[in-house]
């Protein structure tokens, strides 16, 4: 079987969902004949027709708001927001409606919709195309925030998101859309949501991350191994609701934790993980929890973006500081 990239795995999951569930509708800007600007929806309109794969007007709020209406009627809309930088008009629909329709009607109306958006930096994209604002969505009760970090996880988690009876924001790390390829059998098997994935077992320090930063974090773990340090690497995968248990158990074993994310430091999702460790894992800790993150600055344009993004070197350096702590 040919190995496929993360974005191809997204496409394969969408095709499987469209094939196996007639309630699934794909909609967004340029998702039709163009196949999406990243080709995530390539070939879908040809296979499933323009009723179920729908090019919308250039209107993000309506992609989300219309999905709320469709979902309340029992469909399973999967909307694409072309870039996370264009997702902000949609926050109103997510906060005011999608996340709370079940609560406010006591389950009479529900909102099983997925909004996909590519996110993150490092691809020399124009302004507004490189931010990581996942923490905004993870703050909203009633939502799920899911981020894959490999082709297999993209396939399994997207299928799970589409089958989930509640709204999911599915953020795709576009820097690694084509960075790595894997065998992804098209079995239709979904992965469990709300679960961290341990990417690498280790005993000396826990490195917690998600999305494209799994690449740098795994590279850092490899480098640390050369120094005799055995790092455990956890991909959070579902930020909301958080699988704190897996992280706490890991830190119980290692005593040290470093959280890595591309998003700005302050109020980033790493802060929530650090708070959980402070509340429930303090006695396990041999060193303060550290964070390697983007700076609290505006994401710079491409000429400086690599200075902004956490590198394997920064991760290794922070890990050493943690390991050197008495």
């Amino acid at each position: 079987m040919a190995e496929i990239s993360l974005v191809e795995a997204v496409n394969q999951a969408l095709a499987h969902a469209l094939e196996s569930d007639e309630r699934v509708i794909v909609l967004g800007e340029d998702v039709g004949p163009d196949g999406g600007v990243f080709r995530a929806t390539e070939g879908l309109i040809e296979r499933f027709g323009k009723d179920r794969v729908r090019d919308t007007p250039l209107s993000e709020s309506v992609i989300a708001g219309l999905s709320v209406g469709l979902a309340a009627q029992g469909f399973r809309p999967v909307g694409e927001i072309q870039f996370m930088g264009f997702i902000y008009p949609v926050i109103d629909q997510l906060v005011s409606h999608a996340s709370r329709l079940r609560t406010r009607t006591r389950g009479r109306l529900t909102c099983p919709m997925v909004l996909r958006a590519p996110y993150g930096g490092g691809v020399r994209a124009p302004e507004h195309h490189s931010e990581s604002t996942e923490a905004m969505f993870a703050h909203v009760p009633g939502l799920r925030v899911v981020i894959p970090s490999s082709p297999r996880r993209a396939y399994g988690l997207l299928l799970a998101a589409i089958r989930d009876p509640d709204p999911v924001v599915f953020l795709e790390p576009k820097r690694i859309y084509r960075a790595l390829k894997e065998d992804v059998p098209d079995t239709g098997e979904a992965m469990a949501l709300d679960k961290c994935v341990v990417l690498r077992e280790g005993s000396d320090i826990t490195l917690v991350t998600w999305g494209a930063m799994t690449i740098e974090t795994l590279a850092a773990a490899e480098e640390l191994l050369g120094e005799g340090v055995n790092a455990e690497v956890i991909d959070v995968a579902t930020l909301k609701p958080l699988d704190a248990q897996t992280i706490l158990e890991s830190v119980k074993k290692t005593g040290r934790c470093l959280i890595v994310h591309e998003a700005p430091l302050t109020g980033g999702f790493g802060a929530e993980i650090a708070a959980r460790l402070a509340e429930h894992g303090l006695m396990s800790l041999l060193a303060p929890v550290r964070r390697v993150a983007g700076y609290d600055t505006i994401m710079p344009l491409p000429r400086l973006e690599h200075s902004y993004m956490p590198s394997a070197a920064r991760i290794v350096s922070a890990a050493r500081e943690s390991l050197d702590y008495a």
Partner: protein
Amino acid sequence: MRGDSNTENGGAAASFAIPYTRYLRPDGTLEGELPAFAQDPRDLIPLYRMMALTRALDEKAVALQRTGRLGTYASSLGQEAVGIGVAAAMRADDVLIPSFREQSAQLWRGVTPTEILLYWGGDEQGSDFSGPRQDFPVCIPVATHVPHAAGVALAFLLRDEPRVAVCVTGDGGTSKGDFYEAINIAGVWNLPAVFIVNNNQWAISVPRSQQTAAETLAQKAIAAGIPGEQVDGNDVIAVREAAERAIARARDGEGPGLIEAVTYRLSDHTTADDARRYREDAEVSARWKDEPLSRLRRYLVDKGVWTKEDEEALLTESSQTVDQAADEYLATPAGAVTDMFDFLYAELPTDLLAQRQAASQTEGGGDG
């Protein structure tokens, strides 16, 4: 040919008109030929009765709020004909996507007065309608619900069901992007949706004249390529007739429409508002002569199908209905503290178990 002078149409690329409909004048006399449903004046009595019940419910709700027994409430005083006319034009299996001032439409469609009071009394149980199970709950953030109507309509279209999504928003709502984005996609996709604008002239303190320079709100439909028209929103016959036409078109696959119902907000914006801060009493007094109940009552009396005794009996009955609803609402216990967790997701995520456990141990629970 664009840019060339065209003597045949005066050089216009396109031209549009906004029709206006009224049957019942403020003094209860008629203009034009009545639509079929209004030919027999006795058939208008159910509309009148439900408008009267709405007014009684609004009055009761405001009284409950003033005595600390209800939360902030948005009265529909003076706009009863909009909701009743629209709801009477709908079929039971159509779906209503209302703003927060459509209690008249909700009542017509089978939402109970008790449920309406429960919602405004601060209880989610009020939006778990026992009647129209697919209708949306009221929408507080202005016009954010208009795209939902496009989604509901798309669901009907995809399932090839002869049903229509009917959305009501206010004059202020037409200034929002969501309103335009929704009517625009409804036009492009030829969706079975009807958009009603309850133009009550005031968006809290901002008058219609400061909302838009457009001559009518109905003409906003033109930009979306869908039919737009204006009706006298205080004439329930006109509202119902225009809504029936628009809904029939949508049901027959002829696409969406927009109706601006011109009415007037005789009350404050809500019980939390004092309209005297920004609006002259004289303006409000002058508008009372246009309100929808008295003109229909005059007409029914003139036609000999409504008497003083009928009126007194209706007032007594409406009053009893809303008193009973208030009693039921006040006697309804608040939900369990754990409800806020148990209706959040289909299944409670593990991460929330500890919070749910902690909440379940809080004292009292609810203020019911």
